[in-house]
């Protein structure tokens, strides 16, 4: 009973603290997904060219190559007259790229010699580079068409020049973009859980020592275990709230992201996000226990922030580990808290089937680790040194 009284007091107390509320309700659930998801999508957009999108290309001497212009038009590229000073216009960013058709283009083409074309591009500008990649790709197709026509004209099979036929068969379920995006999801969940409980845990343990309000509290007729469990329960509430909000914001945010550029298979629809949240949920008690136990050792909020700051590496560790070493989900990795959730959450949004054994191992492993941490926290609160 007294555990719940402590819990409610800590919740009310910390809801009045702007810093705690900011980190629990805004930073983890909203800002972090926006920042990370937003920048990822922006960079994907940079890499991906949409050939169906109609674009306009500035061309010098368009009248010298009517067939080429027609071909470009058929590939969704409209053309317009280039400005006076071509190089300046590209450098200043007025035109992304300019295609210059030389005066003897038509002549060279007729004679069967290489026909000179100049593509003016500004490689220090990402948009210009991207536009150039699209034009280059289209021009390559045009070149191949002309080449094979010439060969056929001379009675040679164009395939003679294709000595190798390389077929790349991508057997992964999803594109690389999707894989990266999927690995961001557990990262977002875990970070927002940590940030959600971070300041409450520090305030309720180290903060209470610092304010010297712990001494009168512990001289009341209640057990120290119910004090520490009340503080733990309050942390759990904040972490839970923070992770639910994160699930909602991930679901909402990814509505606005163009799915096709993420490589098909990765899904952030209702069922996938719910599945991911449920798989991550054993981390709620685990991370809360971790926060409470670490900050119970510390004497001041400053010390607690330092210790927990170092601890922040732990939620990030599996992320980098999985980026650098391709650790497969296995029964051996499943009992490990954090690592197993990273793997399971990735699978959840990639739509992979997850063996029940893995789920059971992950939940059990995480809960056992939680119990050990809580036992340590309770022991720490029995120490007389707590009041030093």
């Amino acid at each position, binding site marked *: 009973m*007294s555990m719940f009284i402590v819990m409610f007091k800590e919740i009310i107390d*910390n809801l009045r603290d702007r810093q705690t509320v900011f980190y629990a309700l805004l930073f983890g659930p909203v800002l972090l997904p926006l920042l990370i998801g937003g920048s990822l999508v922006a960079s994907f957009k940079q890499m991906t060219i949409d050939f169906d999108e109609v674009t306009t290309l500035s061309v010098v001497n368009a009248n010298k190559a009517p067939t080429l212009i027609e071909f470009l038009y058929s590939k969704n590229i409209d053309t317009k007259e280039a400005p006076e000073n071509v190089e300046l216009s590209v450098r200043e960013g007025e035109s992304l790229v300019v295609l210059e058709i030389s005066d003897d283009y038509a002549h060279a083409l007729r004679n069967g010699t290489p026909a000179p074309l100049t593509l003016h591009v500004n490689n220090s500008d990402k948009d210009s580079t991207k536009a150039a990649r699209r034009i280059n790709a289209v021009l390559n197709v045009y070149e191949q068409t002309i080449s094979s026509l010439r060969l056929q004209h001379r009675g040679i099979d164009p395939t003679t020049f294709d000595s190798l036929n390389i077929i790349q068969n991508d057997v992964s379920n999803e594109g690389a973009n999707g894989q990266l995006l999927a690995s961001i999801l557990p990262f977002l969940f875990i970070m927002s859980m940590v940030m959600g409980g971070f300041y409450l845990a520090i305030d309720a343990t180290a903060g209470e020592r610092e304010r010297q309000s712990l001494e009168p509290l512990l001289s009341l007729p209640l057990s120290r275990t119910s004090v520490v469990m009340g503080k733990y329960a309050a942390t759990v509430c904040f972490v839970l709230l923070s992770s639910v909000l994160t699930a909602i914001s991930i679901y909402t945010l990814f509505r606005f992201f163009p799915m096709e550029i993420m490589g098909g298979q990765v899904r952030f629809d209702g069922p996938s996000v719910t599945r991911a949240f449920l798989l991550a949920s054993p981390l709620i008690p685990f991370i809360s226990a971790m926060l409470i136990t670490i900050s119970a050792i510390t004497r001041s909020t400053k010390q607690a922030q330092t210790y927990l700051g170092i601890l922040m590496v732990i939620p990030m560790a599996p992320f980098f580990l999985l980026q650098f070493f391709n650790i497969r989900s296995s029964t051996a990795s499943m009992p490990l808290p954090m690592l197993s959730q990273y793997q399971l959450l990735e699978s959840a949004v990639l739509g992979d089937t997850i063996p029940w054994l893995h789920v059971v191992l992950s939940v059990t492993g995480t809960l056992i680790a939680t119990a050990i941490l809580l036992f340590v926290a309770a022991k720490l609160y029995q120490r007389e040194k707590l009041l030093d």
Partner: protein
Amino acid sequence: MIIAKQLQRSFKRPGASRLKAKSEQYVHAVKSVSFSAQDGRITGLLGPNGAGKSTTLRMLATLIKPESGSATIDGHNVATDVLQVRNHLGFMPHNAGIYPRLTARENIHYYARLCGLDRKNSKQRTGELIEQLEMLTFADRRANGFSQGQKTKVALARALVHRPQTIMLDEPTNGLDVMATRGLREIIRNLAVQGHCILFSSHIMQEVAALCDHIAIITDGTVVMEDSLNGILQHTGQHDLEDAFVHATQSLSNEGIAGDNE
């Protein structure tokens, strides 16, 4: 009622090397504390800074365990009967230690609930204390900007919330102005008149002389003398408590030297 017999407690010196002798590794904060505090009386625990007052009070409040000796609060042993002791004891440590983001009322209400009062009784008891300690003007403000006097009142109200028979106050007048000190003395006297046993620790002679019916002088972890103010003055042959205090503490160090010579 508090009865302390031969309480003893030492602490490990921070950063002490294990290679040194045991006596050097440990600080004897409390060597031998014996005294009694009766109901309906204000007992003063008088001693300089570092004499062991706070450690003694912490042992009595069951926060730390004595290494040897024993103490009872209203008949309950502080080492074994922890919850009963806490039920009978209201303890106000020397720092108010109230929650700055809660109002005065919420601070008191929280302790009332933790002491096992139900919601209704907690509310009622909190209201009573707010009236009794004249806190109405600031009861519903957050404790953030409270003056020291206001903080002390909140802390005192929290210590009284479960109607304990025995009340221990660790240097309660620290940082209070004259008016606040007077007000607090009045409150403490009233509590004694109501039959509570009050233990009051202080290093200020005038304060103890003005307020206490019974005085225990503690120095260097030992209670050297315990009597009424008049008794102490007579016993030491001095005219005021300050001289008596110096006399009493010197007699201890003389004994100590004599002891070493033997």
